[in-house]
């Protein structure tokens, strides 16, 4: 199940961003994304551990560039979401290889995928809401929110790293 979703995520991620570029007439980035997707899949088959990280960064880089270029936001956004999913599943797939015969791998897969889907759906929902709804706040409040965000973000990272 994980392998199926992983390969699906890579294809959808690369496909969304590449089609966004291609529809706007940028064919070179589309080809580059195709190469990226192929390398990612080959890397998974050949167990190259380094592949998912550049894959994720490239997908997010292309998606961000797509936003700047005014490409279809939905496709860029979906590509990024599926890229995050592919990066997560790549690591999970590698961890599952450590399981021994008789371990409850389907149970682990089910719970992981459920959690990932919830996180991604929540992220996608909040992002869509942010894209659709625009709230106007004053500069002072924006500064306060930025400071609070930076503090909270720092706390999260510190807790995860320790």
């Amino acid at each position, binding site marked *: 199940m994980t392998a199926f979703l992983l390969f699906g995520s890579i294809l959808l991620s690369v496909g969304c961003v590449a089609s966004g570029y291609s529809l706007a007439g940028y064919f070179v980035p589309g080809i580059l994304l195709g190469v990226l997707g192929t390398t990612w899949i080959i890397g998974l088959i050949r167990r190259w551990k380094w592949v998912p990280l550049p894959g994720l960064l490239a997908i997010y880089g292309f998606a961000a560039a797509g936003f700047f270029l005014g490409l279809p936001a939905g496709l860029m956004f979906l590509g990024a979401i599926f890229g995050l999913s592919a990066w997560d599943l790549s690591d999970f797939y590698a*961890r599952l290889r450590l399981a021994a015969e008789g371990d409850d791998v389907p149970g682990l897969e089910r719970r992981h995928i459920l959690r990932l889907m919830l996180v991604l759906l929540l992220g996608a929902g909040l992002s869509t809401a942010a894209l659709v709804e625009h709230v106007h706040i004053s500069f002072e409040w924006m500064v306060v929110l930025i400071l609070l965000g930076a503090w909270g973000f720092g706390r999260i*990272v510190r807790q*995860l790293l320790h």
Partner: protein
Amino acid sequence: MNRAFITALLACLLIVTGLAALHAPLLVLAVPVCIYLLSGILFRPGDIQIEAERRISAERVLVGEKVLVTLKVTNPTNHTLEELLLEDLVPPGLEIVEGSCRHLVRLPAGGSVTWTYGLRGRRGSYSLGRLRATARDQLGLATVQRTVTTTGQLLIVPPVLRLRRVAIQPRRTRVYSGTIPARQGGPGVEFFDVREYQTGDPPRWINWHLTARHPASVYVNQFEQERVADVGLILDGRRIANEFGERTIFEHSVLATASLADAFLNAGNHVGMFFYGKQIVWTMPGYGKIQAERILHDLSRLEPGDSQIFSDLYVPRNLFPSHSQLVLISPLASADDGALVALRSRGYHVLVISPDPVAFELAALPVSTTTDLAARIVRLQRNLLLRRLRATGIQVVEWDVSQPFELVARQFLERRPGLTRGVQP
């Protein structure tokens, strides 16, 4: 690279770029990444407080025998470990032949997991007391690792070949009866000498032929007493003598030592062992099965070492008095004759079992004229060394390790050494 760090870096990049460029969609792109990070912090695993219990099917096995290790890991806390990787840290030298020492599980609060795997390994003493537990949240962002200690010791001892008899004849024996000819007349089996009849001698001991030839007196047969002896086994563990590139002949020496110790102890002798290798190890002399087990335990721990000088070989006389039997198990190096001759000159009766290093090394080399020539030269040097030893009265048994040790023992060790019988020292 840490996954949490990567995610945080990506989110930071998106937020900073979005703010710098005043481009809201980039901030929106960071939202799923931030939610992903937040999930990691919310569902990160707590401290790992698991309990592990280990059972080993046998604590002492022979080389090649399989051992089953059963591990039971319990989570006594009230929080579930969603993704827990349990790895039993198997020391080098052991190989897993059945099952797996690693399991990826979900361990609910109060739950437990049990598994069994099979091990096999080289000779040695192994500590199987460490289990590494790595807990992650379901997205793998936060990792907590802990090593849990358990009890578990495994001793893999060398195989012991049952030798029928090892004939030695040291000049000095102990007072207890045994199987070593003591060069003294008395009760026994083998004919030793004749003497004049004394009151109390059983009539069946009378030598009628001799008495008929010398009618002035009556003569009786004397038999050679058989007693136990002090036997010191010296195992040579020097790398210089035992190791040839990646291959070592040391395991053969260990096998021979174990078999000889067993044979000598079964015959009732007082046996001790001295190891000269990575470290100097003494197994104090003793009798019986406990001593055999003690020697096997010590043998299982020995490793070849870098000691080079054999001439400092010191055998304490309080443990092995002069004229007792020493058995050296060594492939021998070129300058070893001095130390052995010195032992002989101190009165020890020395038997050398020498696994043949030339044949051993040659078996692993490609056939060529150069190799043949080199082998001939080394063989000549070795033959000279052995000849020098034999000339001083040292009994040398050369063992081509491609042959089973029992065969060599039967051929060369079961017969009595060719010394003059009945001669007192």
